[in-house]
């Protein structure tokens, strides 16, 4: 009976994982196919030739794009962690007049869609002469209401006694933040970091808006350049580009899976 149960369980797991993974596998297969093979709807390429990969590196400065994406994503990730954790600390451990009001005002900005603030943000960046710079691409994303909210909820679970004890022990406000609050919220920080990194990695419109040449452009714009509008698109080359672009994110996911899972489930249980 137990064997049966396990068998069914594993069968379902395998089927769902195949369904989930199919798009990536198909993209992987297409990256080896020629134009005719793709359009006639084949699932497996006739030969595993690397032509498309050669073409994609030939056509685009893909390495530069990858480095830019890394710099921008890491920048946003670190910026968000610093700004959000400090803000959340203030909202939890420092009492001042109108704290709750400011907090709710802050949270309510989550209701404003990003697209609505895009144009004012763009003008700010333009006036600062930050077009084609890393700071123009990262800075507008540092203050994240969602991140502050996530960390605030976690900080609230830290017992008041701990705060009082640290005060008695003579820790400064910053010492308490740095040596007590941050270490105990590691999982939430990892979750927020991964979230920030991945969303930035996948961003398209903002990097396109604030860059006018290839110097600081990210991979997503590179992928867009591979697709044509009126002329037939060479999907093989596009998919080769996609595979190259998702490898770093997949690696990150595999390496950080344990932490990420812990962070997400802990958040969910609370």
């Amino acid at each position, binding site marked *: 009976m137990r064997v049966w149960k396990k068998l069914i369980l594993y069968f379902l797991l395998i089927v769902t994982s195949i369904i989930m993974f199919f798009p990536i596998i198909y993209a992987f297969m297409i990256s080896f196919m020629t134009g005719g093979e793709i359009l006639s709807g084949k699932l497996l390429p006739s030969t595993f030739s690397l032509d498309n990969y050669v073409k994609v590196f030939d056509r685009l400065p893909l390495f530069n794009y990858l480095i830019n994406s890394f710099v921008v994503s890491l920048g946003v990730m670190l910026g968000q962690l610093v700004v959000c954790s400090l803000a959340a600390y203030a909202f939890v451990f420092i009492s001042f007049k109108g704290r709750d009001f400011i907090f709710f005002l802050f949270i309510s900005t989550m209701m404003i869609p990003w697209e609505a603030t895009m144009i004012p943000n763009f003008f700010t960046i333009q006036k600062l002469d930050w077009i084609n710079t890393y700071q123009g691409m990262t800075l507008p994303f540092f203050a994240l209401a969602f991140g502050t909210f996530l960390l605030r909820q976690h900080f609230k679970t830290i017992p008041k006694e701990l705060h009082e004890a640290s005060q008695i022990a003579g820790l400064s406000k910053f010492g308490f933040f740095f040596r007590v609050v941050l270490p105990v919220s590691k999982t939430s920080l990892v979750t927020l970091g991964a979230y920030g990194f991945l969303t930035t990695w996948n961003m398209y419109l903002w990097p*396109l808006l604030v860059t006018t040449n290839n110097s600081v452009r990210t991979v997503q714009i590179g992928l867009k350049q591979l697709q044509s509008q009126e002329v037939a698109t060479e999907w093989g080359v596009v998919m080769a580009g996609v595979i190259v672009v998702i490898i770093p994110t997949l690696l990150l996911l595999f390496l950080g899976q344990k932490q990420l899972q812990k962070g997400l489930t802990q958040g969910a249980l609370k």
Partner: protein
Amino acid sequence: MRKSSKFGFLALLLLSLFALVACTNSDSSSSEKDGNEGKTEKEVVTTEEGKTVISFWHAMSGAGQTSLDAIVADFNASQDKYEVQAEFQGSYEESLTKLRSVGGTKDAPAITQVFEVGTKYMIDSGFVEPIQNFIDKDKYDLSQLEENILNYYTVDDQLYSMPFNSSTPVMLYNKDAFKAAGLDPEKAPETFSEVIDAAAKLKTDDMKGFSMLTYGWFFEELVATQGGLYVNEENGRAGDATEATFNGPEGLNAFNFLDTMNKAGTFGNFGTNWDDIRAAFQSGKVAMYMDSSAGVKGIIDNAPFEVGAAYIPYADEVKRNGVVIGGASLWMSKGIAEAEQEAAWEFMKYLTTPEIQARWHLETGYFAINPSAYEEQNVKDAWEVTPQLKVTVDQLQSTEPSIATQGALISVFPESRQQIVTALENLYQGMDAQEALDAAAEGTNRAIEIANKTK
């Protein structure tokens, strides 16, 4: 006490908000002025060797970008006065949006590629220098360029932008399927009723007879080839259009044509994506469909069967008028340094030479805007191998110049095309042809009205 302090705080917050808004306003106006002042000083970016550097914003991705980058590199190597930097800015829509936000400032490029339906918007925007000024100054001979392409971009007898990548629709068909259905593969159906008959014969269990991408451009072409106008005021060229006229008899003809086949089950609807309808054709799910001339070469290279190209169909009771060109043209910015404009003009002239146009035509499938390119040996050789390319050029050159084939000029074209897409989708769902068309016309009228008011 607490309450009042809370209100006081709120008031303070509001006040600071206003102050902020006011600040940004004054900021923007002052720095805009700064930008203009900077322009009057005519600062020109130069390379170490003293070449004038200009940027060229384009929306060519994929094969078009590869070809364009090579042409730009050749131009830079061909002389030692100018350096053009070609920079990709996203799709046509995205790059136009970007241009809107930087137009008239120092971040604006010297040359921008804008799609054909953005023509009216660009003219009204005020940040472009009509190309005509340079043509007159330089005594450039316009007659060497393709008349039917120039017609589109000529407004009030002025050529505003230099045509660059131009395409028209063509009808592609599966010759093998024609043979299998007992039709003559060398003679494609020409009129609406001939296409309907052929579609009925071609239909098998897994193959539909005819299809058209659900995209406003093809509908515009079906109307224009019957001599019908899209909007009033002579297609918007005599003055600002105020009303859509595509729901007249010509538009209804086109809708009925599609409706007849749809009801008979010989029409295949493959949605709004170019790649989807092409995949359907290549995998034998549809025997005839309309595509852009720029896509023809890719289809022929990849199709596992023989592909035929033909003129787009027209209504039986009228004579064929021809096609309106689509694609994009190059616009020169106003308010930039004279040296930069000179550089832009030199580059545009370089682009229109027969050798470059021949190369462009062969590498991308777009038309050569300079017809003498077709006399080049490499084009002749290529036509020998793929005679279908010649069909697309013949169709353009046999077009009768008229207001209908000159193409409509309205600033809200993207919105109007969206209305047509909705109308086509409704038609395929079974809505009455006239009713669907009227709804689209009404939506277009509303958009035009708003645009004219806010102009």
